[in-house]
């Protein structure tokens, strides 16, 4: 089995609008792949279909050779896919620690009680948030909410981690911390598919990029070559720059 995630002819229609049009690509184990494209090109929709948040209109998504398209999000989580959201989604009535415990309790390991609390602290420590474990999740700053969401996603022990603009809205210092954080996750052997607009981050993290425009895949290859691709430049900046 050479690829972890394999997407074939994936299509999503909303009424008359085709948001994702017959997209195919794959991600190998241990790879960090960037999913790029201008706003509205269908990147987040692809992520939503992988995580099961949206049902695909047609096409197939497979994880490690097993079809996961058509499953509910809670089943897909148990197969080993977890994610963060474009607009960060904390659980405001829980504490930061409980946010992570929620993932441990129902994820693949079903931890509960003292074991779950200890594990949650460890997960929070990885993202530098252990000292806030007992705070209410709604009191966190934006970057800390993003960290908490990442800790929650990691607590699900994913084989594939989906990051939806996880670095967006961070200031340069926070960005450097964020990139370092993702790199540390990568070093532990995680496979990551990330939707991102921050080109510096993509160059620093992704070995390969898939580029979408208007619902179609227009490029797929090593990061440097892909970003220099004529069609990609046109999609982002218009004809004049190509």
């Amino acid at each position, binding site marked *: 089995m050479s690829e972890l995630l394999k997407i074939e002819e994936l299509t999503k229609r909303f009424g008359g609008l085709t948001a994702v049009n017959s997209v195919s690509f794959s991600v190998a184990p241990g790879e960090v792949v960037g999913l790029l494209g201008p706003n509205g090109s269908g990147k987040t929709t692809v992520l939503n279909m992988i995580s099961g948040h949206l049902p695909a209109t047609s096409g197939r998504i497979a994880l490690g050779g097993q079809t996961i398209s058509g499953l509910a999000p809670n089943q897909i989580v148990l197969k080993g896919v977890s994610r963060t959201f474009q607009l960060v989604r904390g*659980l405001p009535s829980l504490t930061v620690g409980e946010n992570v415990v*929620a*993932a441990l309790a129902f994820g693949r390991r079903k931890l509960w009680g003292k074991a779950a609390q200890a594990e949650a602290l460890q997960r929070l420590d990885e993202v530098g948030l252990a000292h806030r474990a007992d705070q209410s999740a709604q009191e966190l700053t934006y970057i800390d909410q993003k960290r908490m969401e990442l800790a929650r996603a990691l607590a699900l022990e994913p084989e594939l981690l989906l990051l939806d603009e996880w670095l967006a809205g961070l200031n340069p210092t926070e960005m450097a911390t964020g990139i370092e954080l993702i790199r540390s996750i990568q070093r532990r052997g995680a496979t990551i598919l990330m939707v991102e607009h921050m080109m510096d981050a993509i160059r620093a993290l992704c070995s390969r990029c898939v580029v979408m425009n208007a619902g179609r895949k227009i490029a797929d290859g090593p990061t440097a070559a892909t970003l220099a691709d004529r069609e990609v430049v046109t999609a982002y900046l218009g004809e004049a720059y190509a």
Partner: protein
Amino acid sequence: MTRFLPPILFLAAVIGLTCIPLFADSYGVTLGIGMLGYVTLASAWALFSGPTRYVSLATVAFFGIGAYTVAVLSESMPYPLVLVTAGAVGLGVAIVVGLSTLRLAGVYFVIFTFGLAELIRQLVTWYEVNMTGTLGRYIFLPVTPEGIYWQLLALATATFIISWWVGRSRVGMALKVIGDDEVVAAHCGINIARMKLALFAVSSVIITLVGAIQAPRWTYVEPTIAFNPTISFLTLIMALLGGAHRLTGPLLGAVPLFLLFEWLSAHFPNHYSIILGLVFIAIVFVLPRGVLAFVEENWKRWRRREIKKLPAVAE
């Protein structure tokens, strides 16, 4: 030491309540039955509706199912078996209602439960008129008021323990997550539909049993008595007044409101439902999350103000 205090207090309260019928007169026992009934109804309602925020207006549908099952079966089956059957019927209805509405947005559930009591009332009426030819049944069961009181106390205690267990278990965590954000819940691996259905079923069975246990008090039952919508309404007010998110909330709401309603129905029998409605609207406006939350928030605010004052004095 403080760890053992709540269970000891709880045990003492249960023992104390068990002894009441030995001293109280018959009015006292009647009052106790009504109060225990509503405490159980409000706690069972809050068990499901509190964390999920699915407002169920169908309390009396299940209550009536329980009462009516007892009325129909009391002469053909031994009493314990009648109770079990009543619970099973309630469970069946809860599963059908839950399976068809709980996957949808909460508002559909509210609407469905809003008319459910009326639907079941009409179906029972139709059945009685067409199949048995009579409307109204007598219940002759050798159950004393004290017996009913003790049964309700046992059910109330069980409900309380279930609520306490749910609050501390994984199920409670799942419900909190679902209440906050269903998308995140699903992406944490929680099977939302199954979780809601299970809790709705437990809550409904408890409510059905309250109806079944209280039925012998009436002696005579007909659909309009068993499916009186005021019961749904009172349960809702009590749970909301105390705060549906807390273990003791429904209890604290049910006791004072039950006494108030007893007094109102004795003194203003005609204006009862108007006053009820106004009390309810006032609760929704003034205490949207219950008395306990209100007191707690104001206590915090008050303390914060005190703390803020201190440095000002020092300067």
